[in-house]
């Protein structure tokens, strides 16, 4: 079985490397490597899932890479129920996206390169998920970040794509500082980086303190948890480190679906769940997680209301939904969070891929103001998009209804500081979600056809290789909630792989209290939102513009994305650049370059020139130098 576990990521890696060898080829053959590789990963993941359900788990090292002092650098795998679910979801969505890509990237000169990247992404994501220690987690974490960077800048001749990829990279680097600090704190306190001993000794972390600022001792557990959460904020696009995700839509649509909606961005959420024994040690960290998640869920939903680019709307909705998941982590409803992660992976990938199909149909136009009426021309895309939209809004009986409502209800029951705010934020968020989702749906698929005549004449349904993955993804978007909610969230599926402290088990409580009027509130809000969207964008089409004009500053704040970009680009980056310039001129050029680097280099070069002179070329000089050596050594031993 151990070999099998190892085979899962390696199959994807082989696919990626194989596709990598075809990069130089002009023929579109990259998928011949990548798809079998990922397919093998997917099938084996299913085998592992079945095996795990039968009660077999694994935790151990498969390869020791090296040892430094007492620190063993091991490639270790942890296979339990949480891992198995994630593996299945990741490989399933990845496989669907791979197939879709054949059609979507057809004709692109970077076809083969694209396959090498996304298969490689699958490998890194699997390593991240399957890790049994922080080091392998970090390896996967950085690996997916790297591939994400490469893919956002995939069309590297576009300036905006390069800027976006750079932004994603820099913001994630910011998060990595936190991540590495967290790792450092854990290693410094416990002397190990493997999950098992860290979890077993999490109590020690809570009781030992670290003075981050002199004179202010702080529990290591809180420090590490919060530092790691900073990393998760960057990866999972939480306020204020979410700014890279909307821009990442510069990349091709399949990767928006795979990386920036379904899988990679959930890495932060996954990490929080994986490290639940650590987070349960720190109420402060949980509270922070909760508030940040709630803020993200609400605020970025609002921003989505005013976007015109269809992919950006979905991107903001992704951030908002990630906020829901993070809230679930904060209120210790880990199972609910992971469940939402799972359903979200399905319906958000579906939405992106369907949007991509629509974008392709209208000659790669992403602005919804130039779409409309596509429902008649593209029935499959339309229906699958609608399923995705309903699931996203949380309409019964679609998947999102079950997963999202569970989180909201759990928030209502939680006693962690900030839970009240989180409850209301997520509740209002439901209504907003419904409005922007159906605004997008109506603008794209109904109403007048606003594209130019040329494009309109060529409107047609996409090829089967594109529509089939949509259908395949629509099935779980429709059914996953209905069938899986009870066993996964309330049935104790995750067992020991998630840890919830005594007295915080809101999901356990919820299982008994299921009911009451509060249960129907989110659904009602969602329906109201859908109705509002229909009224605004189908019945009274003039109203949105007038509303925008009337709301004035609020509207412009939303258009300006609540000023976060400004904050980063204008102030932080500006200040950073200023500081950098000062350090560069003063510190680097004069001190380090002038004195240390070039100074040393100059001195070494001078010494080199002098020493080189000894090599005269005369044999007797050489022999003489040898004799001097003999003389010196013999004298040494004589005197010793």
């Amino acid at each position, binding site marked *: 079985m151990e070999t099998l576990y190892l085979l899962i990521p390696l199959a994807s890696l082989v696919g990626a490397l194989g596709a990598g060898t075809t990069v130089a080829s002009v023929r579109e053959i990259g998928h011949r490597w990548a798809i079998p590789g990922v397919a093998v990963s997917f099938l084996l993941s299913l085998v592992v899932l079945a095996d795990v359900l039968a009660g077999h788990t694994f935790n151990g090292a498969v390869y020791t890479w090296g040892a430094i002092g007492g620190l063993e650098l091991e490639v270790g795998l942890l296979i339990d129920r949480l891992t198995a679910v994630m593996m299945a979801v990741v490989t399933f969505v990845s496989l669907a996206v791979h197939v879709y890509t054949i059609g979507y990237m057809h004709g692109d000169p970077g076809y083969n390169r694209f396959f090498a990247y996304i298969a490689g992404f699958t490998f890194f994501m699997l390593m991240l998920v399957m890790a049994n220690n922080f080091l392998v987690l970090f390896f996967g974490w950085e690996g997916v970040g790297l591939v994400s960077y490469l893919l956002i800048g995939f069309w590297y001749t576009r300036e905006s794509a390069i800027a976006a990829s750079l932004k994603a990279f820099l913001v994630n680097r910011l998060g990595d500082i936190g991540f590495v600090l967290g790792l450092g704190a854990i290693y410094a306190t416990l002397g190990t980086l493997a999950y098992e001993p860290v979890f077993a000794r999490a109590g020690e972390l809570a009781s030992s303190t670290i003075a981050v600022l002199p004179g202010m001792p702080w529990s290591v557990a809180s420090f590490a948890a919060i530092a790691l959460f900073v990393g998760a904020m960057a990866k999972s696009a939480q306020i204020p480190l979410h700014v890279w995700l909307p821009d990442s839509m510069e990349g091709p649509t399949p990767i928006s679906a795979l990386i920036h909606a379904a899988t990679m961005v959930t890495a932060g959420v996954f990490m929080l769940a994986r490290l639940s024994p650590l987070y349960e040690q720190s109420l402060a960290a949980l509270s922070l997680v909760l508030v940040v998640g709630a803020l993200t869920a609400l605020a970025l939903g609002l921003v989505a209301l005013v976007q015109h680019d269809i992919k950006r709307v979905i991107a903001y909705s992704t951030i908002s939904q990630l906020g829901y998941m993070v809230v679930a982590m904060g209120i210790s409803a880990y199972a609910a969070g992971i469940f939402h992660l799972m359903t979200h992976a399905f319906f958000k990938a579906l939405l992106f891929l369907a949007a991509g199909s629509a974008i392709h149909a209208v000659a790669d136009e992403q602005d919804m103001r130039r779409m409309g009426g596509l429902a008649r021309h593209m029935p499959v895309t339309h229906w699958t998009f609608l399923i995705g939209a309903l699931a996203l809004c949380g309409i019964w009986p679609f998947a999102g209804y079950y997963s999202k409502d569970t989180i909201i209800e759990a928030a209502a029951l939680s006693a962690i500081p900030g839970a009240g705010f989180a409850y209301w934020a997520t509740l209002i968020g439901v209504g907003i979600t419904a409005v922007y989702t159906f605004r997008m749906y109506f603008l794209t698929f109904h109403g007048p056809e606003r594209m130019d005549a040329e494009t309109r004449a060529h409107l047609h349904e996409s090829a089967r290789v594109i529509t089939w993955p949509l259908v395949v993804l629509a099935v779980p978007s429709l059914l996953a909630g209905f069938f899986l909610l009870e066993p996964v969230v309330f049935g104790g599926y995750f067992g020991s792989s998630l840890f919830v402290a005594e007295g915080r088990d809101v999901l356990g409580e919820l299982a008994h209290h299921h009911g009451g009027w509060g249960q129907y509130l989110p659904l009602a809000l969602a329906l109201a939102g859908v109705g509002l969207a229909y009224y605004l964008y189908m019945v009274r089409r003039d109203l949105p513009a007038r509303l925008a004009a009337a709301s004035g500053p609020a509207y412009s704040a939303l258009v300006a994305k609540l000023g976060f970009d400004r904050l980063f680009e204008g102030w932080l980056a500006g200040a950073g650049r200023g500081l950098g310039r000062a350090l560069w001129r003063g510190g680097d050029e004069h001190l380090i370059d002038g004195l240390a680097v070039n100074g040393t280099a100059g001195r070494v070069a001078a010494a*080199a020139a002098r*020493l*080189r002179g000894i*090599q005269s070329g005369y*044999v007797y000089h050489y022999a003489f*130098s*040898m004799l001097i050596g003999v003389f010196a050594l*013999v004298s040494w031993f004589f005197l010793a």
Partner: protein
Amino acid sequence: MTFGTPEMLAVLPELVVMGMALGLLVLDLYLRPDQRGITFALAVATLAVAAVLAAVLVPGEARTLLNGQFLHDRLGAVLKVFLLGGTALALIYGRRPLQRLAMYRGELFILMLLASAGMMLMASAGTLLMAYLGLELMSLSLYTMIAMDRDSIPATEGAVKYFLLGSLASGILLYGLSLVFGASGSLALDEIAAHAARAGVSDPLLVLGGVFVAIGLAFKLGAVPFHMWIPDVYHGSPSPVTVVLASTSKLAAFALLMRLLVGGLGPMAEQWQVIAGALAVLSLVVGNVVAIAQTAIKRMLAYSAIAHVGFLLIGLASAPTSGYMAPVLYMLLYTLMGAAAFGIVSMLDRDEAPARTIDDFAGLSRTHPWTAFLMLILMFALAGVPPTGGFMAKLYVFQAAVEADLVWLAVFGVLMAVIGAFYYLRVVKAMYFDPPERTLGPVGDRVAQGAVSVNALAVLGLGILPGPLVELSLFAVAGI
């Protein structure tokens, strides 16, 4: 006395190489000049077969055979596999260049086989006599091979210098050996070790002998101040011979060192540890610093070889306390790196535009992207940049030094490695950032290209997955 089959079986790799050398000597007479490929192929095949035999016949525990002359143990077997493999690689890389130099002759292949036989005997020497005979067999063959490039003045000069200084070093070594013999009354290494354990430092004859032996070995390894021959000889030698000089003859010298200093004078480790430490410091400084001033690629690599001996000596200086795994690992990896780096240099060495200076590599990434990539790996590996094998080798050596309480030596080594990175990166810069100035022709034949690719990628792979080589090194030194 009788020689049983098991005894002969253990010496089989040596017998195969020697026998084939004699056989080829006769066979080559009957071949026309255009059939030289047969001799070539048979020589390579002989080395490969012997390597396989050495690997198959690896013994469970060490035994001395043939009246104690021959030591059959794991270390010897592992080293032999690398010695033979490295020499075979050198031959494969050298096919084209040798043809161009008019050195593609039967005599060269025979000498190559005899040199290999000498190296193998050094790795398996059970007595001082065998150690010395193996060394001379190898050295004489090497001198001749260098001189075979008769029309080249640098080659002739290099051969004469190597011969003269090598003879001087051999004399010093022999003097040391005779003192050791005189002190212990035996030629057998195990008996010498027993005597050394008994008498130890109190026997000045043994100490003095040990010092002279160490000096002789330092010359063969090329440690400062016994290094002066290295740049001139590496530079002057025909490139295919330089490959052997830089990789396998170094490994053979290391094997001899393991036999004489560790096997014979092991109980006097405290004495030669000091020598190793002092020579390590000198070699690191001179090798790394002077390499910076070099413009010729082979000279630069020659100084880099001196610097690498410095790192190796750090490992040896710490080995008595922290184990011999680190130096063995370092040497095995260096053999691979040296063979590939010099191999590429020799293959680029072509008629129209011989690659002699670093500037000749300018723009290689555009004309020969794959070769440039391989060279990039090798330069990084030599500099010790992760994730290449060179990094692992250095890491283990420094770790060994720290374990042996020689932290200052480790720190010094790291500093020198930083300086060293500079000149390796100069090659990389030339290959990737400078515009091509001269057009170099195709690189070697297909077989050679494939072999050098495997060789260089192995260097990279052993950095990513160092496990197998670490295991192998531990296996080799298990008996010590």
